[in-house]
Structures are given as structure tokens and as C-alpha cells.
């Protein structure tokens, strides 16, 4: 096996110079992106950034104006589109299911269209926690239950690539935790997951890599840590000190270049460039026991996102 074919096998989603133009509007503009097999990949961007258009192109729902899109090694809109789509699972953002069908009937309907084994439907419902309500009509389901049914639908036919658009919509905190645990299991089995979410905190600790989109372009791509280093946003150090130490602390911090200090509700927040972190910590040691508490906060995904948007 050649190196190039090995590389091709390890790539689950490949976008090359992909654009989508609506007249003069460039919804997606020259996007190059590669998602590796077994990767949990986040795609974030504000409304109108081009994220949904890119998602739809990756699913083959709309044609690209230019460029090439390959999912699981084949084109999503080529002659072999059926085989490609059988390898894809999709959970849309605004999931709408057929209210008059039961959960099991819904699964069987989608299984037939996907060419998946209808015998797998009860097991998949069990897997998403809907095992006991398979015969209940969807109109009786809460938003969270519908979302779980949608996720079960996306898992039909053991897809190798999952596209999940705002999958935690309507889920309560414990369901969100279970959902991401399920995603981790799928990732371990080699399933590639492309996910979007407006709840950046959900993605921050869970994705392997992510891309930030704005104005139809990928503005940054990499792991959260890589993006932190790349963007060099300041760290926040939250301190609690005795009131008598506050003046001394301010003097110490002013001596370090690029450091700012703010007191909010009795808590001192020091913002410093990443390279100055150790200097700040060293400057705190003379405070001794007057330093009562300390927390170092890396820039969050939200900080990175807004940092990129300016």
C-alpha cells in the first residue's frame, strides 16, 4: 500500500477549494479542510458565517459552486452517492420527525430508506435511552426525547461519518453528558464525527480539533490548545488576597510588562500574556499567606472565538 493511499484511507472528510456563491454573495469561499478518520471535529461560527452551507455541501444537499468534497473517500454527489450516503449519519439542527409515527416506526422508515437492517432499530432505541417507549407516538415525546430519536436515526446502518448539527439542543445536562459519552465510544470505534454547537463550552473539552468560520472562510483550525497558542490570547489569573496586600500586589503587577489588573467583587483578576505567566506567579510569592486563593484560566473557546471575530 502506498503512502498516498494510506493517507487517503485515514481521511474521512476532505474539502478542496470549496466555494458556494449565490450571485455576488460568497456564502462559502475557498475552504480547504481535512477531517481525519476517528476524529471528533467541531465547526463553529456565528450565524451567517457559512457553517450551515458548508454542512449542507458536505452532506451533498447542495452543490458546490467550485471545489471538491469527498466523504469516506467518495464524492457525495457523484454516481456513487448512494453508497456514500449509506456511510453517513446526519442529525439536523432543527430536527422534525413525523409526529404520527411511533419511535420504532420512525426508525424503520429511515432504516428502509438508508438500506439499513430494520432489526437493528430496537437496539438503537435502547442505546439512546428510548428502549421503553418505542411504541409511543412521536407527538408524545419531549424535545429531548425527539433529539435522542434523531440521534438513533443518525446511527442507523453503522455510519463511518456522523454529521451532527447542534446535537445537544433540548437535552438536559445529564443527557448531554450521556450523549458525549456515546460520541467518545463511537470515536473509539473509528467513527468520524463532525459537530456544530453554539454552546462552545460543550465543545471545548470534547473535540479533538475545530474550525472557526467567519465570512464564508475558515479563520482558524486546530485543537483548542493549538488555537490558544496560535492566537496568543492573555491568560486570566483569579486571586483572593487579604485587603492589606492589595496595594503591594498592584505594585508588583505593574512592574511586569503587558499585565493588567482588575478588582471585581473582592476578587483580583490579573490578565497576562502567556510568556509572562511564570513571572506573575513569582511576583506573588512575597505575599505568602496573604494570598488566600488562586485560579489560572486558559482562554476559553469563547475567548478564542470572540478574539478571532475581533
Amino acid at each position, binding site marked *: 500500500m502506498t503512502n498516498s493511499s494510506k493517507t487517503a484511507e485515514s481521511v474521512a472528510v476532505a474539502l478542496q477549494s470549496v466555494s458556494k456563491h449565490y450571485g455576488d454573495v460568497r456564502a462559502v469561499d475557498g475552504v480547504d479542510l481535512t477531517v481525519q478518520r476517528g476524529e471528533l471535529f467541531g465547526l463553529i461560527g456565528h450565524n451567517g458565517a457559512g457553517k450551515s452551507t458548508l454542512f*449542507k455541501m458536505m*452532506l*451533498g*444537499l447542495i452543490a458546490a459552486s467550485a471545489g471538491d468534497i469527498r466523504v469516506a473517500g467518495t464524492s457525495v454527489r457523484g*454516481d456513487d*452517492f*448512494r*453508497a456514500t*450516503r*449509506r456511510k*453517513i449519519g*446526519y442529525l*439536523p439542527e*432543527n*430536527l*422534525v*420527525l*413525523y409526529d*404520527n409515527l411511533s419511535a420504532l416506526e420512525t426508525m424503520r*422508515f*429511515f432504516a*428502509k*430508506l*438508508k*438500506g439499513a437492517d430494520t432489526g437493528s432499530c430496537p437496539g438503537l432505541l435502547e442505546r439512546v435511552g428510548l428502549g421503553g417507549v418505542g411504541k409511543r407516538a412521536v407527538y408524545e415525546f419531549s424535545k429531548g426525547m425527539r433529539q435522542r430519536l434523531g440521534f438513533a*436515526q443518525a446511527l442507523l446502518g453503522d455510519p463511518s461519518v456522523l*454529521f451532527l448539527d447542534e446535537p445537544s439542543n433540548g437535552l438536559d445536562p445529564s443527557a448531554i453528558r450521556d450523549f458525549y459519552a456515546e460520541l467518545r465510544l463511537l470515536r473509539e470505534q473509528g467513527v468520524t464525527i463532525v459537530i456544530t454547537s453554539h454552546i462552545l463550552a460543550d465543545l471545548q473539552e470534547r473535540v479533538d480539533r475545530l474550525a472557526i468560520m467567519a465570512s464564508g472562510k475558515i479563520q482558524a483550525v486546530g485543537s483548542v490548545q493549538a488555537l490558544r497558542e496560535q492566537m496568543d490570547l492573555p491568560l486570566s489569573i483569579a486571586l483572593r488576597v487579604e485587603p492589606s496586600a492589595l496595594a503591594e500586589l498592584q505594585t508588583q503587577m505593574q512592574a511586569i510588562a503587558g499585565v493588567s489588573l482588575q478588582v471585581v467583587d473582592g476578587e483580583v483578576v490579573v490578565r497576562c500574556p502567556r510568556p509572562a505567566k511564570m513571572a506573575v506567579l513569582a511576583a506573588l510569592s512575597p505575599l505568602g499567606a496573604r494570598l488566600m486563593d488562586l485560579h489560572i484560566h486558559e482562554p476559553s473557546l469563547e475567548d478564542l472565538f470572540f478574539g478571532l471575530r475581533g
Partner: protein
Amino acid sequence: MLNLEWRQVATLAGKEFRDRMRNRWVLAVALVFAVFSLVITYFGGAQQGQVGLRSIEFTIASLVSLVIYLIPLIALLLGFDAIVGERERGSLDLLLALPITRLELLLGKYLGLAAALTLSTVVGFALDAVLLFRQFGLLGLYHYVGFMVSSVLLGLAFLSLALLLSVVARERTRASGLAIALWFGFVLVFDLLLLGLLVASGGEFGGQLLAYLLLLNPADVFRILNVFSLDQMRSLYGLTSIVPPALANPWLMGGAMVAWITVPLVIATWRFRT
């Protein structure tokens, strides 16, 4: 080459048909047809001071008037949101992300709805068929079955138009408005317009051209199909003076009806692909 998997079409059609069975749409429409057809059969001649079964010609003539109003409306209401409804609700993307083509989706929707409409029409008019068979024998039944088949074709033609509206319209409300406008246009305005032209031109505009213009309206094709199958009805409608003998050929009119079924579907397929 056409990339069509009939298995996918059958799955989609089966769901549409089962939905209409389950929500009792088929039953409700069949009941409407049954009640109206029985009432018209018995009381159709009440204005002439007669009740009860009269001739098969008179019964069919009365039923044609009912069907021309009712079936187009029911078919349009059945199909106007088939695609735009899925689009507006947001379920279209989920369907189209599956290994199906847009043609399969459209055909599946159409065939499922067509099956529901056909079943309700046939069942609805079946009771009347039994009565007419007992009264007028096989010949009466033969004419009545012809009427039923043409009624089904009329429904399929308007369902095809409804699906076209459903593909063209960007919103469900717009599709419903267009469906009602189409019903008004074909069922109420079209003939009035032709008649107006005939009268306004003092008979100058008319003749063969006027007759052939009737082919542009599936409701008129249905009327001609039924009227020309029975001698008494030609004079009853007074159409012998307007419609040339060439249009009296049931195969030609049947072909026109089939064209009214297929052409809107072909246009809908073309529009849905782009």
C-alpha cells in the same frame, strides 16, 4: 440514464398512503363521495319534480357536475404541501441526506397520495355502482365504471398540478393560495372566459379553436370524456354544436388526461432538481 430505485419510491409511497389511512383521510373523503353520490342519484331530478333513480345518462350527468367541483379541490388540498410542507417544517434536508434521489422522493409522494385519492374515490362511488347495477344492469355499470375511471384520472391530474405547486412555492401559505387560485381558474373562470370570448366576438371567435382550447383545462377534458360517452348527454349539455367529432374520441381525451397527469409531474421533477 435515470437513477431510480423503485424500492425507495415504494417506501416513500407506502408512508404517504399509510398516513392518509391512519388519519382517516381516505375514510372521510370516501364517505363524502358516497353520501353526495347517493343524494345526487336519488334527488338529482328534484328540480324537475322527480326523485329516485332515473336514467344512467341523467345520473352520470348529475355526478359529473359534482365531481368537477369536488375532486379537483380535494386533490389540490391533498398535494399542495407535499414538498413545500417538508421544506418548511425542516424535514426535507433529513430526507435528502439519505440515499434517495429527488425524483424518488417526488414520485414516492405522488404515488402514495395518488393511491389514497384513488382508493377513496373508488370506495366512495362503489355503493352507488351497486345501486345502478341493480337498476340498469351491466350496460349501466359499464358507463358508471367509465365515469369512475375518468374521475380517478381527473383527481390524478389535479394531484399532479398540486405537486408542481408544492415544488414551485417557497412557502406553504403561498402554495395553498396558488392551489385555491388554480381551482378557481380551472373550475370556475376558464369556461366562463371562453364563453365570454364567444359571446363578445359575436361568434367570430370560436368554432374548432374554441373546442380545442377546452383541452387546456383538465376539468373540461373530464366533462367531454363523460359527455361523449353517452348520446343523451351530448344534447343535455348542448355541446354537440361546440365540440367537433374529433374530440369525441375517448382515446384522444384519455390521452389528453394522461398528458395532464404526466406533464406537470415532469415539470415538477425538473424544477425540484434545480
